[in-house]
């Protein structure tokens, strides 16, 4: 046991097993996550800068970036609005079936993406459960960018609800009572007292939903129809390039996506830091 050992970067502890646990963690992460991920960057380095740039700025690739980021952003905005609404209703109000709704909020997270994909396609196709009502209105969802949006809204739902819900639960009644006593209307209390409290969580949920949507594949490809320049998402571009044995091209696009993912992680960490700071200020 490592009780006697002292690591320079670690504070002393009477508990054993740090060396074993930490060693296993690092080796595992290194072999499963970091080494394969680094392969993406090494592979891209075999391309010259000009080749890389031409690959990731080809019209078809650019169109897929526009669609993936545009639809993901819009889906995240919609999920933020309705996620806040759902979280609020679930925490503050009583209604029949509340427990079931609360549990099923995680369904998009638990349901395999391919299942979600074919189910959404069935619902929104011309003769589907919802599609049959949209078709007379001239709204086509399946095989259009709108279909991509619908799938991304579906899979992003739990993120905002689950990050905002605990924060609403933790709001102390006294704060709202104080606002009311000081003459604030219910709306003023929400806008000036409650909303600022949940804002960091809301932004975190928004970023998580956005990040998830950008990389999403399974739930999108069935409903999107995957027409080049129109309804082709970035992950599909990667798959297409792989199927054409264009490994370097696929990896170049993947590296752009990875860099975007790292940016998302940075933003989420900053938001959580902001949120912690805000809470400690409140105490």
């Amino acid at each position, binding site marked *: 046991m490592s009780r006697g050992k002292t690591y320079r970067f*670690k*504070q002393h*502890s009477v*508990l*054993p*097993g*740090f060396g074993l646990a*930490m060693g*296993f*963690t690092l080796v595992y*992460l290194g072999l499963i*996550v970091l080494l*394969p*991920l680094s*392969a*993406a960057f090494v592979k891209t380095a075999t391309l010259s800068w000009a080749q890389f740039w031409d690959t990731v700025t080809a019209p078809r690739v650019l169109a897929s970036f526009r669609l993936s980021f545009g639809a993901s952003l819009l889906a995240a905005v919609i999920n933020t609005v*309705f996620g806040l*609404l*759902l979280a*609020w*209703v*679930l925490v503050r*109000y009583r209604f029949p079936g509340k*427990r079931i*709704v609360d*549990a*099923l*909020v995680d369904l998009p997270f*638990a*349901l*395999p*993406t*391919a*299942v979600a994909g*074919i*189910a*959404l396609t*069935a*619902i929104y196709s011309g003769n*589907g*459960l919802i599609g049959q009502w949209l078709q007379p209105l001239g709204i086509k969802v399946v095989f259009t960018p709108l279909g991509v949006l619908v799938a991304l809204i*579906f899979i992003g739902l739990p993120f905002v609800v689950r990050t905002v819900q605990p924060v609403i639960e933790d709001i102390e009644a006294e704060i709202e009572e104080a606002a*009311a*006593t000081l003459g604030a209307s*219910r709306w003023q*209390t929400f806008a000036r007292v409650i909303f600022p409290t949940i804002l960091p969580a809301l932004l975190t949920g928004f970023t998580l939903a956005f990040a998830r949507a*950008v*990389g999403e*594949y*399974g739930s999108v490809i069935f409903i999107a129809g995957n027409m080049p320049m129109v309804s082709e998402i970035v*992950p599909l571009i*990667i*798959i297409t390039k*792989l199927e054409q044995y264009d490994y370097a091209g696929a990896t170049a696009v*993947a590296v752009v*996506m990875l860099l975007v*993912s790292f940016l*998302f*992680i940075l933003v989420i*960490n900053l938001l959580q830091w902001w949120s912690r700071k805000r809470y400690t200020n409140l105490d």
Partner: protein
Amino acid sequence: MSAELAINAPQVIARKPARKATSESGLVRFVLIGLALSYFALLVLTPLFAVFYEALKKGAEAYFTAITEPDALSSIRLTLMVAAVAVPLNLVFGVAAAWAIAKFEFRGKSLLITLIDLPFSVSPVISGLIYVLVFGLQGWLGPWLQAHDIKVIFALPGIFLATVFVTVPFVARELIPLMQAQGSEEEEAALVLGASGWQTFFRVTLPNIKWGIVYGVILCNARAMGEFGAVAVVSGHIRGLTNTMPLHVEILYNEYQFSAAFAVASLLALLALVTLVIKTLVEWRVKH
């Protein structure tokens, strides 16, 4: 009942004015609940309903034929195998990582937590791609593997690896906050009383984190069985050999065998529902 009401009645009356100032009017509540539930039903309930409706549209017989034909059965077997590999590995990893992170203070801890969460932020397709880059024919180990006649990509090991990658964070991210909140006093007491490290772990730590483990394991299992994008890249879609259930659903769907596709999909939807039930029960248990 009536006695209970009588006791509660004055309280309710006394609280009523106070509640009004810190809650919305009845109409606003009604509208908000209605809006939230309509949105929820439209977005979440319809797909769930559609899976079972489409699966059973052609009758129970067609349904059972679809889920018992040899390719479907072999996809079910492979999916169970994938989970049997990925879940235990990530369970051991999750416990080890949580032990190191929650019980000790060291530098770079938040970086390590970020690294553990990393697979969540990587597109499933990229999760598969990176293994192709390492083990594929053109990859780092490709020539060596081919010389030794070992297949990783378009074979089972690739499917296992890609699934392990996408499910790395599940157990760890449940256990880390839980063990951090529990602190180390109980373990320290056990050690002072003469327990060995492993005894302390199995008799003190493990009972304390068992619900966190159940929670992490069922979520990890659901993702492992349902993973599509990462597995699609490394699998090669060989029927009866490298097709997991989600891939089998895709193939059937692309062959316009919609009822069969939804029949297999309904099994995965059931898995998701069972996962949510267990998850809710665990949450309920922990709260009460």
